[in-house]
Structures are given as structure tokens and as C-alpha cells.
């Protein structure tokens, strides 16, 4: 796996109990529109080392494994 880089995206929110919403309230999921074969949209994010990381940094160099983690309990 030396050519694969894993990027962990920690998205801990304080809304752990929110999915159990009363019926009267409206929910909307921003449906993941991306599918296999699509070009991945470019992004720029801040790493834990306070450096900007762009998807294009890895173009032609490494495969990218993007794991979106919600409520990862980082202590943040």
C-alpha cells in the first residue's frame, strides 16, 4: 500500500443525537452525487500540521483513500 495515501477527514460535530428527528421536521440529504468513473472534485483542506493539502497534490503520484469520519472523538 505504499502508493496509497489515506486521508482521514475528521468531522466531529456535536449533533450525535440529531438523526432521531420528529416526523414534522423536514430532512434533506445532500445526496452524494459522485459515482465511480467521475473526476473527483478538487479540494483544499487544512492538515493536522496546519498545511494545506490539495487533491491535485497527489495527481499522477499516489492513489488517495479519503475517509470521512464523523464523531471520531478526537477530543476536539
Amino acid at each position, binding site marked *: 500500500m505504499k502508493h496509497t495515501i489515506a486521508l*482521514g477527514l475528521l468531522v466531529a460535530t456535536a449533533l450525535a443525537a440529531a438523526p432521531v428527528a420528529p416526523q414534522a421536521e423536514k430532512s*434533506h440529504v445532500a445526496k452524494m452525487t*459522485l459515482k465511480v468513473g467521475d473526476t473527483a472534485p478538487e479540494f483544499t483542506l487544512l492538515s493536522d500540521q496546519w498545511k494545506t493539502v490539495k487533491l491535485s497534490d497527489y*495527481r499522477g503520484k499516489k492513489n488517495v483513500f479519503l475517509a*470521512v469520519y464523523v464523531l471520531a472523538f*478526537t477530543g*476536539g
Partner: protein
Amino acid sequence: MDSPAANAAFAKQISLTFPLLSDMNRKMLKTYGILKGYDVQNETYEWALRANIIIDKQGIIQFVEEGDSAVDPNTALTMCTTLHKKGDAK
């Protein structure tokens, strides 16, 4: 949303060797369609879904998994290995 500082402490604690990224302005999450929202009493609350996405060296999406099944990374890891072997074969 966890800050880079919180992520740094966490990465050190569990000796991670890959970067942990923060989407503080939720831009990437919106672009990728991973934000889920609920309207409650005229307020919208949003949070991200769990997701595993694998993007190859050419920037093409090779694997997408979202929701509960994305909690287990094994399917994505198998896909990573396959992709890696494919790359070696070229």
C-alpha cells in the same frame, strides 16, 4: 468540525502516519454531497455522513461507500489493494 490542533493531538496519540484533514468551512463536504441537513423550527442543522472514497492517481473516483457500511473500512481497503496491484501491473 475538529480543528487542526485537535486532529494533531489525536494523530500523535494513536501514532497516525497519514494526514488528518479538517473541513472547517464544510466546502469539500458540500462539493462531495456528504452533508446531511435537518430543518428544525426554521433552523437548518447539518452534519456529515460517514463515507469512504477512493480516488486513483488520475483523479478518477474508483470507489464510493457512504452511510453505515462506511464505518467498516475493510471493503475500501480491499479496493485499495486491488488498485495498487493494478498500478504495479502497468
